[in-house]
């Protein structure tokens, strides 16, 4: 019962936090009538998501069929929250939650609540169904889930009360509310628990692809030739646009700019004017309240920016997960062969690349061994025919990646000569637990490959 309880709790916690934050804004502006409908809309979204999953199952479809259709909803909702935070930067809550805008605002908030947990509803239903099938105890799983949701609901109510008592309501303006909801969606407590947190990857990926496409567009527009026709130094400048760190920086700038602009607009908003008959203490109180509000609101934006920075950094670390091992020494048997021990990690099911370096005639010959999808081990130089000798890394299971021209090469083609493929080593053979390479051939092929590099 614990697993369904935890899953349902974490998924609902996103909704509970969203409700608590929204409640602070609504209560502050006297719009209490929306508190329950907002919570109900969050719950309804969860139920609709679960219903979509069950309906898909009844048509013989699985979560794998449904999830790709729900993912854009999550991603677009995240983007919409960011856009809303920016576009409402100069709009005070009083204006939004008073006639004539009040009805439209309430409808907008209810729609947001409905969509906020909808994708997670499908994912949660799938996870709970799986748990029920595995344990054969549907009742227990359902009880755990209901308790989890109830627990999250109670937590949301408690947080709303506690935050209001602590004066945190001062931090919640329409713009900061949406900034915090965006941060909440980015942090993705529920989606992470369900193993389906895709918003950071989608946002940073979209920006990275746009940069990449922009460079390509510039190549086409200005009729710039391809990298085999360019000098290394020129291509290094172009590669800067493809660096993961450049993509991460661009993501922070593009996603952070609306938040920072909203924060700046909030901090620079006009101070309230005291009435003509107000005494100095009343004026000072008004001024103090304004300063407190400014600080609290700025903290909310700062929190959203911090979450964004952390998420982009974590995503960058994950996306940049090129496996580039340090070369291990390979030894010469004194009889014309270079020996590479293939005990662990290749002894087990480890498929990762291993690099080796052989010192022969004063040259450091680097090569790697990787397992192809057909199970065969293949050895090739850490060098390609075309590019400068920056070598390869492994990208996922299925690719080696030329670190110079940033071209992924299908691992199945390693061993074939030509182009950006790593140069094969003739005569390499696996003998027992050893990879045996003819020393002369290894040195000759390395020498030949390096001779062409400028």
């Amino acid at each position, binding site marked *: 019962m614990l697993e369904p309880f935890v899953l349902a709790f974490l998924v609902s916690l996103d909704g509970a936090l969203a409700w608590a934050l929204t409640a602070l804004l609504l209560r502050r502006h006297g719009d209490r009538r929306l508190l329950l409908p907002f919570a109900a809309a969050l719950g309804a979204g969860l139920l609709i998501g679960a219903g979509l999953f069950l309906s898909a199952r009844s048509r013989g479809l699985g979560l794998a069929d449904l999830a790709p259709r729900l993912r*854009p909803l999550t*991603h*677009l909702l995240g*983007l919409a929250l960011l*856009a809303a935070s*920016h576009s409402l930067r100069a709009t005070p809550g009083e204006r939004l939650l008073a006639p004539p805008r009040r009805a439209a605002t309430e409808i907008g908030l209810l729609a947001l609540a409905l969509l906020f947990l909808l994708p997670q509803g499908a994912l949660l239903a799938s996870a709970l169904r799986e748990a029920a099938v595995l344990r054969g105890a549907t009742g227990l799983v359902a009880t755990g889930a209901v308790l989890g949701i109830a627990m999250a609901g109670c937590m949301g109510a408690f947080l709303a009360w506690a935050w209001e008592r602590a004066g945190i309501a001062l931090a919640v303006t329409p713009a900061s509310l949406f900034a915090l909801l965006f941060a909440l969606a980015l942090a993705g407590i529920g989606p992470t628990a369900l193993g389906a947190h895709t918003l950071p990857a*989608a*946002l940073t990926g*979209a*920006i990275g*692809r*746009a940069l990449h*496409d*922009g460079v*390509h*567009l510039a*190549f*086409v*527009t*200005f*009729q*710039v*030739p*391809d*990298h*085999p*026709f*360019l*000098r*290394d*130094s*020129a*291509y290094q400048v172009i590669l800067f646009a493809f660096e993961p760190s450049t993509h991460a920086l661009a993501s922070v700038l*593009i996603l952070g700019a*609306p938040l920072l602009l909203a924060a700046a607009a909030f901090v620079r908003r006009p101070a309230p004017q005291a009435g003509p008959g107000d005494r100095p203490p009343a004026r000072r109180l008004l001024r103090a309240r304004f300063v407190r509000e400014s600080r609290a609101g700025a903290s909310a934006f700062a929190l959203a920016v911090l979450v964004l920075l952390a998420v982009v950094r974590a995503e960058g670390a994950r996306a940049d997960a090129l496996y580039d091992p340090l070369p291990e020494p390979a030894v010469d048997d004194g009889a014309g062969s270079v020996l590479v021990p293939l005990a662990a990690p290749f002894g087990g099911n480890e498929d990762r690349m291993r690099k080796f370096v052989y010192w022969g005639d004063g040259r450091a010959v680097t090569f790697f061994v990787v397992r192809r999808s057909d199970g065969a081990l293949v050895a090739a130089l850490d060098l390609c*025919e*075309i590019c400068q000798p920056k070598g390869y890394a492994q990208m996922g299971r299925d690719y080696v990646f030329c670190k110079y*021209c*940033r*071209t992924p*090469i299908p691992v199945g083609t390693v061993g*074939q*000569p*030509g*182009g*950006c*493929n790593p140069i094969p080593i003739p005569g390499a053979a696996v003998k027992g637990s050893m990879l045996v390479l003819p020393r002369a051939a290894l040195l000759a092929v390395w020498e*030949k490959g390096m001779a*062409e590099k*400028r």
Partner: protein
Amino acid sequence: MSARATLLALAPSGRRWAARFAGLFVLWALALELATGAGFVAAVAGLAGAGLLILSGLCALLAAVGEPFAGGAWSGRLARALALGGAGLLLLSPPLSLAFRDTRMLKVGEGQELPAGALPGLPALRVGQFALSPRGPFFPLSKTVDVPLETDDGGSVRVGLFPPARLSGWRLTVFQFGYAPALEWRDGAGREVAAGFMMLGTFPKTEEESRLVEWLPDPNVMMGVGTFPPKVEDLLTPPGSARHLHVRLQEATIAGERRSLASPEGYKYVMEGRPTAHTLSLQVFEGTSRSFAGTLRAGDTVRFPGGEVAAAPELLLWADLQAVRDPFVELFLAGGLLLLAGGLLGALRLLWVNRPGSRPA
């Protein structure tokens, strides 16, 4: 209200709306990518994205035009006007370029005479001898491929890899190049089946025909702007015939060395100079069955049951020239230069105004 006053009144709104439209474009591009994965180019070229960029550019230009009439020091106004004008042109030109760009491919061979109008507005051209070199003529090129073109009136243009050469409003670059051995193929009765320079890598073929031979692997080259190295083989099928001739440029003398062009390392030598004294590998097919396989030296004739193939001593080069008519490229470049100039002037002005002992700005 005078024009000056109108511009002055509109300039602040122009600045504000330029930023708004640009922001909306970023939002639109991201939303399109997240919803459909259509990509950045589709966002720029699509109606909504292009509209937002054009509106943003126009607003920035409006603000730039109004800037000189605003108050303040002339250097500040000039810097702002240049930066805004540059930004306006940079925002305007990409969608206009994508919408109105005219890109064509012009295939030329050494010694060929192109009639006038091979591309709209292009005069009659004579193609000279190509130049290949393993070094680039200047930064950022690492290699040279030069195609000389002569016009009837004695004018000449050298089309290279970069930057584009201008001819009659077209911007020309070498997109790819290849080899063209001269062959004469006759049947058993001495009738000509096909004759001429065979531009390797350019012949159309069906899937079924492609399966007749084992092709050399294609190199992995990224970005797709031009292809390298040139293809060294092709399959010739005369129209309406069931016969096929597969020709592969096996080896040749390049810069005094005998080189194998069919090997995966062949590309290393292709830029060292023109190939001479080449050897071809031939396969002849009757329908799907191979009736002959062998080699043929330049200047020789090879006979086989059912025909003969003769190779002339010359091996010419051909090239695909990418021809682009796009007035907005210049606009884009001008925008970049203006923005840079505005930025530099603004920075210098800040340094000048804030120098020790300067009057308060």
